[in-house]
C-alpha cells in the first residue's frame, strides 16, 4: 500500500465518503460484491486523508457533511491528484440544477441520486474506472516519448560535434568572403566548403542535398573529405566534380542527390572557373559598373544522379575585374516564404542588384531584403548565401598551415626520378598534382608546396600547350580569348598523333637546405628563347602571368636546346 502514484492493485480501490453510516454500509456492500476493495470516510477532511494514504481509483462523495463538505474535499483532492485522473462521483439527493452545476465546477465527474440502484452505481463506477485506466496509459506513453526525444536530441548533439570535425569550415573565414549559413535544424542540409589550393587560389563548394536534417547532412561527410583532399593535391574543378559524383552515386539511394557548385578562383582572383549542377543561378556583379555582369544557369545534372560517363563536366570560365562579386546561394533564399505563402523568387533577388548599390553593401542588402520579405514567418529550409570578393590575395602562412594537415613520413632526401608522358597521359592524368605531392613528402618541403606547384604547373603546361600542341598564348589576351584557347587546345589534343614530354626531377639535401632541379623537355619545335627572355625581363611579353612568377621563385631558370627544354632550380631552406 503506501503513497505510490499509480495504485497497482488488481482489485480496484473505492473510497466512500458519507456522514451517514447506513449509506456508507449500503454503498460499501454494493462495491464489495462487485469486486472492489472499499475504504470509507465520514467527512471531507477524512476523505482527503484517505486519498493521501491510499490513492483510491474512484471516489463516491456525499455533499453535505460536517467539518468539511463534499465540494471543498473534491477541490482539494483534485488539486492533490495533479496529472493523475481520479474520478469523483457525487452522491446527491439534490436535483437542483445550480447545485449540480456546482458539483461539476469543483471537479466532480458524475452524480448518483437516491435511491441507489446497484446497477446504475456499478455502471458509472466501471465507466469511470475505464476512463481512468485510459488516462494513465496515455500519460505513461507520453512520458516515455518525452524521455526518448530527449535522448535522441542529446545523441544528435554529440554526433554534430563529430561531424563538425570532418565537415569543417576550411578557409571560410578569409577576409574576402561573406557568408551566411542558417540551417533549419541541428544538421545542415546545405554544405559550404572553402579551401586554398596549392597555387594560392581558392576552391569553393556549395551543395544542397535532397531534404534537410540528418539524412541530408550525412552525405556531406565523404564530400568534404574528398573536396579537401583533392584541393590539397591541386586537382582541377572537373576532377573534383567527377570524384565526388562517383562517390555519391555509389553511396546515396536513387532518390537522393546533391545540387552543387564547385568553383575555383585563381590566386590573383582574375579567373573564375565553375561547374554548376542544379543550384539556382550564380550571379556576378561588376563593382565598377554597379550592375550584374553575368547570370549563370545550371547546365549539368546535380551530383549523384547519373554516373560519370553520363555526367557532363562542362565548366564556365569568367574573367573577373578587381572588386567584382560572385554570389552563390541555395534555394533557401529564392524559396523563402512570407505569411501569404508567396516565395521570395528570383525576380526579387535580381532586383537587389538593380539598385546601383556599391558592391560593399550588397551582401547585407540582400539579407535584409529577404528577411523583410519573410517577416515573422518561420524559416522553412536551410538558408545559405555566399559572396566572394574578387580582390585581395589573402593566402597567408596561417591559412596554409590550417589546411595542410597530412603528416610527412621519413623519406629519402636525395633522389631523382623520370617520367615520360604521351598523348594518353596528357588527356587522362594530371602529373603536376602527383609530382607535387611526391616532391613535398620530404620533411620541411611541405611549406614550399605552393611554390613547387606553381613552378611545375607553369612549366608543364607551357611544354604541353606551346611545345607539343603549338598553341600561341597571345590568343588568351583577345576578347573571349580563354574560351577560344580552350576549344582549340581540346581540338589539337584530340587530333594529336605523336608527341611526348619528359619530366626529370632531382633533389639534393644539404645541412639545412635543399635543391630541387626540375627538367622538362617536350617534343615540340622549341622557340627563340633569347628573344623571349628579353621580352619577359622587360615585362613586354604576354606569355601570361605565370613565367615571371616562376622566375622569381627559382634560383635559376634556363632554356636549353632548341628552346624545347627548360631547367628550373628551386632552392629552399628548412624553416626552424
Amino acid at each position, binding site marked *: 500500500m503506501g503513497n505510490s502514484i499509480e495504485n497497482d492493485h488488481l482489485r480496484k480501490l473505492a473510497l466512500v465518503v458519507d456522514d451517514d453510516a447506513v449509506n456508507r454500509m449500503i454503498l460499501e456492500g454494493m462495491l464489495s460484491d462487485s469486486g472492489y476493495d472499499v475504504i470509507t470516510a465520514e467527512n471531507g477532511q477524512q476523505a482527503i486523508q484517505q486519498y493521501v494514504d491510499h490513492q483510491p481509483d474512484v471516489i463516491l462523495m456525499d455533499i453535505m457533511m460536517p467539518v468539511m463538505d463534499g465540494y471543498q474535499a473534491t477541490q482539494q483532492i483534485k488539486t492533490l491528484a495533479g496529472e493523475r485522473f481520479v474520478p469523483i462521483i457525487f452522491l446527491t439527493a439534490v436535483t437542483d440544477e445550480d447545485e449540480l452545476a456546482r458539483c461539476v465546477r469543483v471537479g466532480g465527474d458524475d452524480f448518483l441520486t437516491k435511491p441507489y440502484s446497484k446497477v446504475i452505481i456499478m455502471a458509472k463506477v466501471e465507466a469511470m474506472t475505464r476512463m481512468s485506466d485510459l488516462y494513465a496509459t496515455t500519460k505513461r506513453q507520453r512520458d516515455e516519448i518525452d524521455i526518448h526525444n530527449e535522448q535522441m536530441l542529446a545523441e544528435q548533439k554529440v554526433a554534430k560535434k563529430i561531424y563538425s570535425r570532418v565537415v569543417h569550415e576550411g578557409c571560410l573565414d578569409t577576409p574576402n568572403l561573406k557568408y551566411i549559413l542558417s540551417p533549419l535544424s541541428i544538421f545542415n542540409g546545405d554544405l559550404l566548403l572553402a579551401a586554398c589550393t596549392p597555387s594560392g587560389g581558392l576552391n569553393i563548394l556549395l551543395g*544542397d*542535398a*535532397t*531534404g534537410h536534417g540528418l539524412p541530408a547532412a550525412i552525405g556531406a561527410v565523404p564530400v568534404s573529405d574528398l573536396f579537401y583532399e583533392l584541393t590539397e593535391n591541386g586537382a582541377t574543378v572537373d576532377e573534383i566534380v567527377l570524384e565526388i559524383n562517383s562517390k555519391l552515386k555509389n553511396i546515396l*539511394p*536513387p*532518390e*537522393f*542527390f546533391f*545540387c552543387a557548385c564547385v568553383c575555383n578562383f585563381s590566386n590573383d582572383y582574375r579567373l573564375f572557373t565553375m561547374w554548376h*549542377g*542544379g*543550384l*539556382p543561378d550564380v550571379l556576378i556583379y561588376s563593382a565598377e559598373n554597379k550592375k550584374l555582369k553575368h547570370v549563370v*544557369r*545550371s*547546365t*549539368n*545534372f*546535380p551530383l549523384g*544522379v*547519373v554516373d560519370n560517363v553520363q555526367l557532363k563536366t562542362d565548366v564556365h570560365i569568367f574573367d573577373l575585374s578587381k572588386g567584382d562579386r560572385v554570389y552563390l546561394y541555395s534555394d533557401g533564399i529564392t524559396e523563402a516564404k512570407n505569411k501569404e505563402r508567396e516565395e521570395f523568387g528570383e525576380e526579387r533577388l535580381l532586383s537587389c542588384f538593380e539598385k546601383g548599390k556599391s558592391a560593399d553593401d550588397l551582401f547585407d542588402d540582400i539579407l535584409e531584403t529577404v528577411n523583410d520579405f519573410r517577416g515573422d514567418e518561420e524559416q522553412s529550409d536551410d538558408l545559405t548565401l555566399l559572396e566572394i570578393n574578387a580582390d585581395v590575395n589573402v593566402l597567408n602562412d596561417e591559412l596554409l598551415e590550417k589546411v595542410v594537415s597530412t603528416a610527412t613520413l621519413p623519406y629519402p632526401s636525395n633522389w631523382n626520378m623520370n617520367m615520360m608522358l604521351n598523348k594518353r597521359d596528357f588527356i587522362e592524368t594530371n602529373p603536376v598534382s602527383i609530382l607535387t605531392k611526391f616532391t613535398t613528402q620530404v620533411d620541411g618541403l611541405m611549406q614550399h608546396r605552393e611554390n613547387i606547384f606553381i613552378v611545375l604547373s607553369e612549366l608543364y603546361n607551357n611544354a604541353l600547350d606551346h611545345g607539343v600542341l603549338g598553341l600561341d598564348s597571345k590568343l588568351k589576351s583577345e576578347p573571349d580569348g580563354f574560351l577560344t584557347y580552350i576549344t582549340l587546345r581540346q581540338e589539337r589534343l584530340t587530333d594529336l598523333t605523336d608527341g611526348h614530354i619528359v619530366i626529370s626531377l632531382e633533389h639534393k639535401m644539404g645541412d639545412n637546405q635543399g635543391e630541387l632541379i626540375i627538367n622538362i623537355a617536350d617534343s615540340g619545335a622549341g622557340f627563340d628563347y633569347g628573344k623571349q627572355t628579353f621580352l619577359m625581363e622587360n615585362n613586354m611579353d604576354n606569355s601570361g602571368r605565370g613565367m615571371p612568377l616562376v622566375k622569381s621563385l627559382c634560383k635559376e631558370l634556363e632554356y636549353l636546346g632548341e628552346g624545347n627544354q627548360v631547367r628550373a632550380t628551386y632552392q629552399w631552406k628548412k624553416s626552424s
Partner: protein
Amino acid sequence: MAITVTKSEDGRTITIKLPGEFDFRAHKDFRETHRDSDPGAQYILDFALTEHIDSSALGMLLLMREGLGNDDAKVKIINCRPNIKKLLEMASFHQLFEVA
C-alpha cells in the same frame, strides 16, 4: 489534395495527376501509383495542378525512373507551369524525362 491515377482503355498508358504541393508528404501515395508497375507502359505525369515541388519530389521522380528500368523507362511530364519547368531544367531533368 490527393494524387489521381487513370488508366487508358488498353491499360498501356497510365496518367498520374500530381497535387498542388508535390513534396515529401506525397511520398507514400506517389509510390503506390506505380508500385505494381508495368515497366513497358507509358507513364504520363500531369503537373497541371502543381504549383510547388521540392527536392524530395525530384528524388521521387528519380526513384520512379529507376523502378521502371532507368533508360528504359517511358515517363512523360506534361502541363508544367513555367516555374516548375525551370526547376526541372536546372537539374537537367529534361534529359531524363520527356518534358512537354
